[in-house]
């Protein structure tokens, strides 16, 4: 009895907290579900709208000294307009292209928006006071504050407003009809472009407001909060079922409560781990969501998500040999800075080669690929530090470990298709990062691994820029050649067959999952080796060294070169890594540049530089 009474107060607080945060997630998820409904698109720019909303509120309070109601109106209007702009400028032109294209475009848009916020408002966190009297109502041993009530109120008003809109207005009917069958809606005379814009405006307004409310709740905002918001919104939406608006509401609240109780039981650094574990669980066990009645839609409507049919441009052998020779002779020039840059580029080429195999040849667009680098880096670093293994052993062993562990981790995603693969790999990547952060006993947690020995072969340390460059170059060329060989053989044909039509490939007796796993394993080995060498070069890595931004960057490289294209992956890495490096002044605009490159490519050259249609 005693214990119960003691614990009751905090538990009430945890419940209230879970519901409040859940409310925020619900606001995000409802917007994502609305957009998914009409546009068949997971909007990765949603979190950026949320951030922009928070900063709009901050700016109007700080500079215009607006009272709360006016702040809310400004944030709602501004975010809605931003949503309209995203749809009109970024996405409308992509109508009719494959469905992964707009998804990637929203990633590009989010990179651009985040960077713009950083440029205009500085990357540092800002305080965002709540503007509300700090009253707390005592309930039993727990308390509820005014801000809690405001958030609950906004959630309630939005939910009823949305319900009324969808059920009782003509445009609301059009939104529902479009979500169920876009072509049929057009044949009823519905202007689906207008529906799209409306939905983006509504969803973005909700997203912007939730950014503002979260900022006030924690009294802090910063430009990096976008990604987390997108992920949480996506998780909440998936719990409710893709595109299921009431489901998204429930999913948000459920996610908020799960996190809050999880924190109560295990501590706050596990918070995101719960969210992503829940995501993978849902994807595997209930891809239609927890509240989805048996839908009339197929469970995985996202097949055939290729950006563009592209055949690789045939490069003359002599040209390739010439370029490799030139690259090998480059260290003879006295240009250490160039060499260093190229080494970095070639290391990322290992990641790009891996991704182009998985995403391009087999058609599994992975958004968490950098996690493979992390596994490789940590494996080799730990083997060297804890077991004293020399570089020549720890690196290949790290590659093998990455291949095994990576394939094992991605296993649940292998039977998925299209968007589901992307979301699952994103989640798995995040889980890897979080495990590294929390498994302090093995990984030193947030401290990172320090003192990883420099690369050495046969007792001789490779200290010169030149020798490291050569080492990485040899590796890249070897893996690229091997990959080319594999692709031109039976294995390559099978992989492509799976990409083109998994159902048909299966019916010919191809064990698609096994072949996908094989591609993943091979790719993971290369990426793991890349991560391992990086770790030895840096001598220090932590859980943020290989983050999702890197995964996105790798995807951009691969698309730039031409999805599935081996030479293209190397070219894409070299261009994207070294160009910004060589124009040093542009360093802070780098993410902006990557975002724009991604957008321009998807719009104008989806087959990449080395692809032909």
């Amino acid at each position: 009895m005693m214990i119960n009474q003691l614990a009751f107060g905090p538990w009430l607080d945890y419940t209230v907290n879970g519901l409040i945060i859940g409310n925020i997630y619900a606001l995000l998820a409802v917007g994502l579900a609305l957009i998914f409904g009409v546009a068949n698109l997971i909007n990765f720019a949603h979190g950026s709208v949320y951030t922009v909303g928070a900063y709009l509120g901050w700016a109007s309070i700080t500079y215009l000294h607006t009272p709360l109601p006016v702040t809310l109106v400004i944030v709602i209007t501004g975010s809605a307009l931003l949503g309209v702009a995203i749809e009109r400028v970024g996405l409308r032109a992509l109508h009719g292209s494959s469905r992964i294209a707009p998804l990637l475009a929203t990633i590009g848009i989010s990179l651009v928006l985040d960077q713009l916020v950083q440029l205009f408002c500085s990357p540092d966190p800002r305080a965002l006071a709540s503007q509300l009297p700090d009253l707390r109502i005592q309930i039993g041993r727990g308390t509820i504050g005014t801000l809690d009530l405001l958030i609950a109120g906004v959630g309630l008003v939005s939910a009823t407003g949305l319900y009324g809109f969808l059920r009782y207005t003509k445009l609301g009917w059009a939104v529902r009809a479009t979500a169920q069958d876009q072509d049929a809606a057009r044949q009823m005379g519905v202007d689906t472009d207008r529906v799209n814009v409306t939905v983006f405006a509504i969803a973005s307004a909700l997203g912007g407001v939730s950014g503002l409310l979260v900022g006030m709740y924690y009294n802090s905002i910063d430009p990096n909060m976008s990604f987390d918001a997108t992920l949480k919104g996506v998780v909440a939406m998936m719990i409710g079922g893709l595109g299921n608006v009431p489901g998204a509401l429930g999913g948000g609240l459920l996610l908020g409560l799960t996190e809050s109780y999880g924190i109560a039981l295990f501590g706050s650094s596990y918070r995101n781990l719960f969210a992503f574990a829940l995501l993978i669980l849902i994807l595997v066990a209930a891809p239609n969501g927890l509240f989805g009645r048996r839908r009339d839609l197929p469970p995985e409507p996202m097949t055939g998500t290729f950006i563009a049919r592209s055949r690789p441009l045939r490069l003359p052998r002599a040209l390739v040999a010439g370029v490799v020779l030139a690259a090998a002779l480059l260290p003879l020039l006295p240009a250490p800075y160039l060499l260093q840059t190229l080494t970095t580029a070639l290391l990322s080429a290992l990641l790009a080669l891996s991704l182009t195999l998985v995403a391009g040849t087999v058609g599994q667009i992975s958004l968490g690929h950098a996690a493979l680098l992390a596994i490789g880096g940590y494996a080799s670093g730990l083997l060297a530090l804890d077991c004293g293994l020399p570089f020549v052993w720890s690196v290949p062993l790290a590659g093998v470990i990455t291949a095994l562990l990576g394939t094992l981790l991605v296993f649940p995603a292998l039977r998925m298709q299209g968007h589901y693969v992307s979301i699952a790999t994103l989640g798995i990547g995040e889980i890897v990062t979080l495990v590294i952060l929390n498994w302090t006993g093995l990984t030193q947690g947030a401290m990172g691994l320090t003192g990883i020995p420099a690369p050495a072969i046969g007792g001789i340390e490779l200290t010169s820029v030149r020798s490291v460059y050569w080492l990485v170059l040899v590796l890249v060329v070897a893996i690229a050649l091997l990959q080319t060989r594999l692709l031109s053989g039976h294995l390559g044909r099978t992989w492509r067959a799976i990409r083109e039509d998994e159902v048909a490939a299966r019916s010919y007796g191809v064990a698609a999952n096994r072949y996908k796993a094989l591609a993943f394993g091979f790719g993971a080995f290369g990426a793991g080796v890349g991560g391992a060498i990086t770790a030895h070069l840096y001598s220090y890595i932590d859980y943020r060294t290989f983050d999702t931004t890197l995964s996105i960057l790798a995807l951009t490289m691969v698309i730039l070169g031409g999805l599935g294209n081996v030479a293209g992956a190397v070219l894409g890495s070299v261009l994207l890594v070294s160009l910004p490096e060589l124009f040093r002044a542009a360093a802070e605009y780098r993410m902006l540049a990557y975002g724009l490159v991604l957008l321009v490519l998807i719009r104008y050259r989806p087959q990449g530089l080395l692809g032909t249609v």
Partner: protein
Amino acid sequence: MDHQAPEAPLLQLDRLNSYYGPVQVHFDLSLSVPAGQIVCLLGGNASGKSTTMKAILGLTRPHSGTVRFAGQPITGLPTPEIVRRGISSVPEARRLFPAMTVQENLLMGAYIRSDARAIGQDLDRVLERFPRLRERLRQRAGTLSGGEQQMVAMARALMGRPRLICMDEPTMGLSPLFVERVLDLIQEINRDGVSVFMVEQNASLALRIAHFAYVLQSGLIVLSGPPGRMLSDARIRDAYLGGEPGL
């Protein structure tokens, strides 16, 4: 109201060439639907029938050729605009809004209209014609039987007060009883002054109600004429109308 000559067809397709990517589906396709008539387009699988519907409704855009409706070119107009000019459709496989109720589906048919009172009256009138739907008004359309769905699709098309209804295989997958009912309904609708352009695989059914028919084969009109002539020509019957497809 109409300033055109009485013989001018309501709908006219003039030398359409349509493609999906590099694959050509229509080759100089021309046909017309005179006002007040039922015109059928017959053809086997993959002959390009549904694509003809899509071209009329603006869902695909032909590379060359024109579609005229009531004397005006409508090629390349957005679908909603074409619908607003008076063309309704009963798409292939019905395409109802599965999570909406029957009533909501019917009202979606009147989306282009804003005369609330007249819409209410039309709803009553449509329900008189399709009495079976009245008891199902609050049921989700996705849970209806195939025949009922066909009724909803036709009723929904009528709710827009169209001058022309385009139907894609309206009898597909229905039991013989429902097939009869659908054919009767099409004739009733037509008697009320709505022209009908109907795409069918089942030639002998379609020819029973059509005023005029075209036969499409691999994107080419290979034959056209009033149904009587088609049915009486044994050679034609064997080549194009015989061996009726099972579905």
